[in-house]
């Protein structure tokens, strides 16, 4: 098997932190893989898996450059390339989002993840919180959820597996090759989510 390349979408947000988390996962899994920032449509062809980082989804979705990359990205996702979206990244992957206060945001999203997002579902920055979560698929030990002006999933389609809930809200989902989290696993100091993602990328690479 040739070397795996994981991309981190490099427009806005905690790009370097996700690169560091992927690196940590690679080291711990002793995988033959590298990670790099990707920004251009042609980059989408060179990677075996993609992380969409946290940040401000309004900004990420409004950038014309990202819109130009969406067709290439959608094609890769439908071919089975694994993607992990954290916070704003999950919003980008969803089919629709609305804001708790402002209402429908009219954002242009990638739309492959069959969920509806409630943005800022837990409130503003003062309501940002840390809490221990149960996340299925990564082992029994709890995962530290870091929620920063976090969204939640208000509706999930029939093919969507709910992998974590908190306070009655859906906070992590998996739909085939797509994982979305409302929290920031890249800030948790625990690489298990990124390791699970890396495993999906390895399986995908093997199958090709």
């Amino acid at each position, binding site marked *: 098997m040739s070397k795996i390349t994981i991309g981190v979408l490099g427009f806005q947000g905690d790009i370097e932190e996700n690169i560091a988390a992927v690196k940590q996962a690679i080291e711990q899994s002793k995988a033959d893989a590298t990670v790099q920032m990707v920004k251009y449509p042609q980059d989408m062809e060179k990677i075996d898996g993609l992380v969409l980082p946290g940040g401000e989804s309004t900004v990420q979705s409004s950038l014309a450059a990202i819109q130009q990359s969406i067709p290439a990205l959608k094609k890769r996702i439908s071919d089975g390339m694994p993607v992990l979206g954290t916070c704003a990244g999950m919003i980008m992957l969803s089919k629709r989002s609305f804001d708790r206060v402002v209402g429908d945001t009219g954002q242009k999203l990638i739309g492959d993840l069959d969920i509806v997002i409630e943005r*800022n579902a837990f409130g503003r920055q003062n309501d940002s919180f840390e809490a221990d979560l149960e996340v299925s698929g990564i082992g029994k030990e709890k995962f530290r959820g870091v929620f920063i002006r976090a969204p939640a999933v208000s509706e999930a389609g029939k093919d969507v597996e709910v992998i974590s809930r908190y306070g009655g809200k859906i906070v992590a989902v998996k739909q085939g090759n797509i994982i979305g989290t409302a929290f920031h696993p890249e800030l948790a100091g625990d690489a298990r989510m990124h390791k699970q993602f890396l495993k999906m990328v390895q399986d995908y690479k093997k199958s090709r």
Partner: protein
Amino acid sequence: MTISLVASDPEARGVKTDNLTVRGTTLLKRGFAHMQKHGVVMDVTTVEQARIAEEAGAVAVMVLDKLPYDVRKAGGVARTASIKVIEDIMDAVTIPIMAKCRIGHTDEARVLQVTGVDMIDESEVLTPADEERHIWKWDFTTPFVNGAKNLGEALRRVEEGAAMIRTKGEPGTGNVAEAVTHIRMVNNEIRRIRSHYQDNDRQELMKAAREMKVSYAIVEETARLGRLPVVNFAAGGITTPADAAFLMNLGCDGVFVGSGIFKSEDPAQRARAVVLATTFHDDAKMVRDAQKMVDERKSLLGLDTKNLELRMQERGQSA
């Protein structure tokens, strides 16, 4: 950890624990700043400007009563913005809202915290309320950003609880020179302590800590990281897309744009152009495209920073 938690106050009163959740931790406050990275924070004074900024791709808006250029022109005492304006903007846009309070003015900051702004800027653009000390920011659940001209000032602010730093320029002048000077200053000082760290010269690191009036721990962490332990944006005088790209390429994590956008004659177009240049700062063709979107004849004319009556950057630097 992928972000540094150095200098956290274990008894920070801004940390709120209830049942199984905790709010106001260093991780959440610095983490918020990390989400702003590679973005542009724009100064706004009205709901209409906030909407233009959001539409253009601002990562957050900073609410002020007057833009720095107008603060400079008006003279007198500059204070925090009207709460009504802040609340109206909070209801109008989905991106984070920041607001400025005066240096040392703990109660302006408390008012902003209960109003619910996402970040407080303890800012030299407003008239300082305490010449001796800054706000003790560990008492707050809301994260703070502070200005700094050099490494010592930046690290002192982080030890007081700042979750983010902006290297100071000279606000309201349209001249990027001062911002460039200060980011270079910070970079050079970090390079110096990093070389001591690589040589394992603890005595020189201790000497640097004493000179900067900060703890040894934060100097060592900064030297190990080779950068500030918190997110660092550039601010002051950014007017054109190329200005933003320049500061990004000098190692800033993002930019604040004050008067440069809404004191120009093409604010909506310019706002989009500055965002584009910030995102693609390392791609000269994209920066050229961004630069094409603005007309230099419509830029804020700007001021000579050498002959100013009021040098905002010097406020609060000795504390």
